[in-house]
């Protein structure tokens, strides 16, 4: 069964550094999403992406965040200058319509 894959599984970064989280969505999917889950908390929506543009974003997704689909297969989330509170699991998801299918996440640790 096709699945969403995310790399790396764990990323450790110094505060203030830029980080790029990578996702390969399921190949025929058209909608792409990023979510985050702070340890022990709910999964929170960050952004949705369709037709090469952001279709919706939450309050969490501020100017420090950006997304890109650089080559038709990868979908990336960039955090420009990381803060301690960015430490979380970041999940990528993709869909044709619904439901959304999730990857296993990247654990981001900010030191």
């Amino acid at each position: 069964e096709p699945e969403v894959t995310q790399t790396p599984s764990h990323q450790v970064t110094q505060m203030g550094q830029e980080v790029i989280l990578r996702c390969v969505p399921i190949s025929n999917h058209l909608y792409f999403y990023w979510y985050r889950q702070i340890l022990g908390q709910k999964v929170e929506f960050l952004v949705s992406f369709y037709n090469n543009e952001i279709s919706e974003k939450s309050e969490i997704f501020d100017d420090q965040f950006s997304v890109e689909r650089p080559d038709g297969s990868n979908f990336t989330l960039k955090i420009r200058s990381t803060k301690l509170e960015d430490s979380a699991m970041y999940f990528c998801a993709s869909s044709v319509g619904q439901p959304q299918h999730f990857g296993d996440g990247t654990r981001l640790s900010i030191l």
Partner: protein
Amino acid sequence: GESVGLHLPTLSVQEGDNSIINCAYSNSASDYFIWYKQESGKGPQFIIDIRSNMDKRQGQRVTVLLNKTVKHLSLQIAATQPGDSAVYFCAEMAGNMLTFGGGTRLMVKP
């Protein structure tokens, strides 16, 4: 440091019994609802979904019930197995944004 996490409600059931996990949703404009299962170290895994024009939907060993009057969603798992042990999240969708609930931990005793 890390903020204090949510205390997850826990449902403990005997293997072979039926499980019922409940969820209250908040947005009366939500028109699509999903149950996800999350095992340790993994992403949310789709279980079953239901649209707001339905009140019940059945899958393999799972049933979702939707009560729009009281904004309540439930997941029933028949003949619960040890492999069902996980955290279960309901999620609601309005527009293109999926909003997750706080989750319930299901523990299955052999």
